[in-house]
């Protein structure tokens, strides 16, 4: 039987984090009462004209610069016409043949283009389906209408639903760290459509694609793409053809329904926006955009790996969450050049994050990653650096270190003081530990006998006895060393 592979391209709409709308001065606020942030321009009242928001262009250029795309030298807008109540002018001001950004790449996926446009208003359909078909009435909130959007279009280089969602996570984090958008999928500031086709493995052509609209979570994106790929494969295996159409995925039922076929598709009648003659991108705007692009997750991970010697996994974990990466670097700065960087990474990436996430779960069910920002916790980078140093110098063992971290997360403070206060210092020096080991050997002659024959397995019993005696403050390695020394092994 022929094996098929999916060919997937994504179109992502990102609301840009400007203070005001794309073509008027209305404030952008999510969640305010409907139709409280509107004016004659964004309501498309007679005689009004658009004036482009320079900040939106700057943010769009930042996206292009971050992805290494070719930045347009002039701004050209087009009108995209269709009738719908969420579109007050009967056309959307968008870009067509001269996008703001041409090409580019992020990670394993190349980009076709990035263009800027205005968002439509928000429609709410009363009725069971929540969609216009079968609704009893519909209401429009024009607060969202005219929000600046960047539309990011990838090349059809994605080969699985999992790759799509993991790339989208990278995109979201990159945009978040760029500071160009809130990238909140629930609030709709990041929305994703997928163009999906299949082809026999080994083929290089492109099959007929369908467009799956508006999947508003990573899980739905995976589910939706998988469902559509499966649908296309079973169609083709049944000897039928995939029709070019726009589809809607219902995550509640897992079903895919057609919104419109190719025949029913719009003729958008694009033409150059006569209210906005082409203008050169101002030099200062371009320079400001280029200067505003920070180090991005992929670059940072690469630096953590090559310059600091972190494992791939640690490097990505810390780089892909900016707050963690920043905290990591602050801790390194406090720890000095001799610190074991991988150890610092482990303590932050594993121990600290786990504890902060546990705290958050107790607090509320919020999905907001800022609530696990270590910089907002009671553990200062200095304290963490000190803790890692104490463990590294074997002043305390790792287990005691974890106890110290528990206290730091709960109450803050200084690791040295906590060690002192709780009596956690390792029974470290040979002088202190030797009598305890000697006593343990004396108390376990059968074990000693086995050890002398070269069977080191039962040494655990000696270590356990010492730990019991020292209340866990001894270093296991040191106990083993002393045992060998005493027995002359």
């Amino acid at each position: 039987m022929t094996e098929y592979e999916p060919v997937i391209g994504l179109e992502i709409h990102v609301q840009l984090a400007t203070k005001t709308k794309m073509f008027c001065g209305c404030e952008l606020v999510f969640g305010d009462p409907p139709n409280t942030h509107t004016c004659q321009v964004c309501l498309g009242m007679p005689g009004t004209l658009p004036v482009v928001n320079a900040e939106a262009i700057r943010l769009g250029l930042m996206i292009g610069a971050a992805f290494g795309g070719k930045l347009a030298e002039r701004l050209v807008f087009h009108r995209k016409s269709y009738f719908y109540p969420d579109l007050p002018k009967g056309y959307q001001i968008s870009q067509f043949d001269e996008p703001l950004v041409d090409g580019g790449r992020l990670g394993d996926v190349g980009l076709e283009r990035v263009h800027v446009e205005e968002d439509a208003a928000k429609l709410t359909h009363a009725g069971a389906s929540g969609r216009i078909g079968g609704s009893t009435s519909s209401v429009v909130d024009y607060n969202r209408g005219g929000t600046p959007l960047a539309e990011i279009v990838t090349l059809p280089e994605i080969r699985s639903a999992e790759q799509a969602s993991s790339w989208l996570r990278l995109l979201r984090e990159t945009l978040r760290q760029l500071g160009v958008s809130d990238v909140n999928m629930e609030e709709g500031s990041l929305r994703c459509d997928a163009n999906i086709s299949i082809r026999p493995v080994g083929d290089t052509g492109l099959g007929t694609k369908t467009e799956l609209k508006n999947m508003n979570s990573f899980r739905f994106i995976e589910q939706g793409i998988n469902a559509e790929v499966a649908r296309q494969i079973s169609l083709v295996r049944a000897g039928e053809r995939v029709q070019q159409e726009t589809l809607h995925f219902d995550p509640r039922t897992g079903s895919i329904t057609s919104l419109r076929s190719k025949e029913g598709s719009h003729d958008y009648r694009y033409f150059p926006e006569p209210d906005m003659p082409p203008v050169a991108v101002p030099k200062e705007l371009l320079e400001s955009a280029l200067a505003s692009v920070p180090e991005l997750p992929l670059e940072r991970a690469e630096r953590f790996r090559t310059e600091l010697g972190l494992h791939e996994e640690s490097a990505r974990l810390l780089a892909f969450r900016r707050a963690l990466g920043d905290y990591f670097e602050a801790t390194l700065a406090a720890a000095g050049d001799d610190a074991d960087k991988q150890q610092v990474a482990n303590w932050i990436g594993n121990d600290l994050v786990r504890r902060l996430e546990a705290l958050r779960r107790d607090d509320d069910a919020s999905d907001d990653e800022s609530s696990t920002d270590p910089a907002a916790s009671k553990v200062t980078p200095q304290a963490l650096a000190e803790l890692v140093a104490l463990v590294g110098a074997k002043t305390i063992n790792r287990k005691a270190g974890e106890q110290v971290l528990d206290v730091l997360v709960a109450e803050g403070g200084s690791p040295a003081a906590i060690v002192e206060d709780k009596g956690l210092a390792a029974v470290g020096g040979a002088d202190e530990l030797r009598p305890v080991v000697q006593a343990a050997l004396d108390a376990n002659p059968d074990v000693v006998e086995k050890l002398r024959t070269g069977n080191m397995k039962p040494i655990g019993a000696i270590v356990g006895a010492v730990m019991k005696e020292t209340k866990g403050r001894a270093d296991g390695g040191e106990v083993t060393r002393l045992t060998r020394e005493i027995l002359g092994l």
Partner: protein
Amino acid sequence: MTDPTSLSVVEAASALRRGDLSQDELFGAYRERAAADDTNSFTWLADDLQAGLGDRDAAPGTDRPLAGVPLAVKDLFCVTGVPTASASNLLRGYLPPYTATAIARLQDAGATVLGKTNQDEFAMGSSNENSAFGPVLNPWDRTKVPGGSSGGSAAAVAAGLAPAAIGTDTGGSVRQPAALCGVVGLKPTYGSVSRYGMIAFASSLDQAGPITRNVEDAAALFRAMTGPADPNDMTSIGWTGNSPEIDLPTAERLDGVRIGVPTELLGEGIEPGVRASFDAALATAESLGATIVEVALPHARHALSAYYLLAPAEASSNLARFDGVRYGNRADIGQGGLVELYTKTRHDGFGPEVKRRIMLGTYALSSGFYDAYYRRAQQVRTKIVEDFAAVHQEVDLIATPTSPTVAWGLGERTDDPIAMYQADVTTLPQSLAGVPAISIPCGLSDGLPVGLQLSGAAFSEQAILDAAHALELAFAFDGSPARGADSGSVRDGSATASGVAELGAPDPTGKDAA
């Protein structure tokens, strides 16, 4: 004392400043004349002087050169709280929440809005017969059209119902009605006056301009309307002429002025009477010292075709917002759905010419036709721009008749859109080129006014106004017969049945701004 309505804008402003005349007296005199109007020029009249001022002060001052001057304003200009319908049933009763920049600047200069004037619906027409408020009658002969689309503005000035009016010109809509009504009309350089608040017909062509009794008044009003670029209009460039601002013209001679006459625009279709008047005007110009030369605008003969693709294309998009959802009049669709709402609202709201142009424009922009129509027309437009630029290397001004004919009979061309479109053949090239042009009356043919059009390079308004002023003095055209009580024939009652009755009584079912 003299009748205050006999004074020009500049004279009236001066009399008001001196205190020879009170602002209320002047306003009242025009209000009374306008209320008794039998040409159907107005769609709305202000109750008093303050109502047309916005929240402004009209006290005379150096920064208010037009203090107390009442103006007739074309219906398509948005004025806060004043019925603004662009002569469409779809917008009948609509009250804008803001005022157009051009009008606001005139109010800043102290002018007050006397009333809104009739026009072709959404400025689409050359005879003012495409109006939801009924046709306007030409004050020179009430069986004739006043031209369009700013027909109400031109007729109001010609009939002495206002000292001056503000119109808009997309393909000739200020110049042609000015010519047919024997008054002065200036279409400024595209971008010199803000379009913000003008209900758009064709964005890349629309431009506001004054319609006045004389050239000096056109300069005075244009000076107030232009100025710095408008931050609300990205196509606005503001005044960038040689002088910091427009001076009132005083020239009496044309020595050293080179005037080009494009043979392409003087072919078939120019009436003999118009041609005779035009030739006499050229002779007068020569006698004042001008040099007349033949020039070539080789692509001008394609202007009509290009214009009637580009303007409808833009219009089809500009008028898409009139869907009955947020403002304007919404059709009653009973239990119908969204498509019925759109279809019936637009079917009932738009007149036939507007529908024709929406269909033309939609077709021209459609997938598969764009390259053959819209793109081709843009290429023609570029050629025309180049033609004008080349000609202005040789000459200062270009002269043509403003209209190939004098005013024609009401209803004469309403069944023949092509004949109607031909009326614009001499004004369209300048519109596509974006250059300034003026029409001044230069004589009579069969007792009806003939207009002379003078155009120049972009931002050459001062030169145009100076030359027009010198010619105006020499022509000594007497516009007064139009203002006489017994001029022309009796008004055709049926033609204005839906007109004057509408004054101050907008459709009670009309919805206000959202």
